[in-house]
């Protein structure tokens, strides 16, 4: 889902940068007030995990592949704010060192994957009714991670669809259904992997799931 440079019109790329910067400043400010020193190691390891997972594409159908984005996974480990920051670092490194996702398109990519992924925390919270265990919780994680990929793809299809290169070949009328078709399927992979990892972590290392403490204590409602 990483948009390369050249797909987006300068206006859309700039607009997405502004939106994403807004979210980054917001998560930075929120993060400052909620996290303590233990954040650094869990942030480092979970970002590294997501970076690696994004390199491991799994095949879906008709010669297309997908990979874990990891937004909901990060949100469960780190909570929404650090999840947004963590994914932004992954995307930044991918763009800088590996030309995976463009530099000008980075604002859009941050929105599609980091912001939507991190905010999926609130979807899990809503769907699970604030109960961070049991079947309902796992179903919520599954659903939220699927939705986060589909929504990210929808945002991506709008961004490219309104840009000249793609509007010449049909614009959003073509890009939206095409992107959704693939990502409804890719999202199932995302959901399966995310749910598996969260379930296993819950069983083996429940302390790793820091994001859940946010749900439990309702720390998000503090201010």
């Amino acid at each position, binding site marked *: 889902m990483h948009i390369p440079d050249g797909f987006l019109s300068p206006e859309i790329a700039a607009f997405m940068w502004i939106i994403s910067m807004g979210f980054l400043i917001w998560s930075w400010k929120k993060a400052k007030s909620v*996290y303590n020193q233990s954040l650094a190691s869990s942030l480092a390891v979970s970002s590294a995990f997501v970076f690696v997972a994004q390199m491991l594409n799994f095949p879906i159908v008709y*010669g297309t592949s997908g990979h874990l984005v990891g937004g909901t996974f990060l949100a469960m480990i780190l909570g929404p704010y650090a999840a947004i920051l963590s994914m932004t670092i992954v995307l930044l490194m991918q763009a800088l*060192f*590996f030309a995976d996702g463009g530099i000008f398109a980075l604002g859009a990519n941050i929105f599609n994957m980091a912001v939507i992924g991190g905010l999926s925390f609130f979807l899990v919270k809503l769907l699970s009714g604030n109960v961070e265990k049991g079947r309902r919780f796992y179903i919520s994680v599954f659903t939220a991670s699927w939705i986060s990929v589909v929504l990210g793809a929808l945002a991506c299809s709008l961004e490219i669809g309104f840009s000249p290169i793609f509007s010449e070949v049909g614009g959003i009328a073509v890009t939206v259904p095409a992107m959704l078709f693939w990502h409804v399927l890719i999202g199932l992979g995302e959901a399966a992997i995310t749910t598996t990892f969260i379930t296993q972590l819950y069983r083996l290392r429940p302390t790793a799931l820091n994001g859940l403490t946010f749900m439990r204590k309702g720390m998000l409602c503090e201010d």
Partner: protein
Amino acid sequence: MRGLIKTLVLILVGFAFLAPFASTDPDGLEKVAETLKIEEPENIWNGLMPDYTLPTVRSPYLSTVLAGFFGVFMVLGASFALGKVVAKSGK
């Protein structure tokens, strides 16, 4: 700290093991562009290791794994630093 290193080793080993099985098919967005016959434009910036390969390493497997390891440490370092800064300015 020990837990951190253990998890990191697990991530690196898991990656080295799974890398050969990763699909090289186009991803969702690449497929859509391909179907619409849109050429991916020439990159403005190619990065140090375009497409996660080290240009100087012959073996494709080794090339990808080394690029991946490099990326892991960059991401790890940047995230750790960010985590320290965020937490320090708070409590």
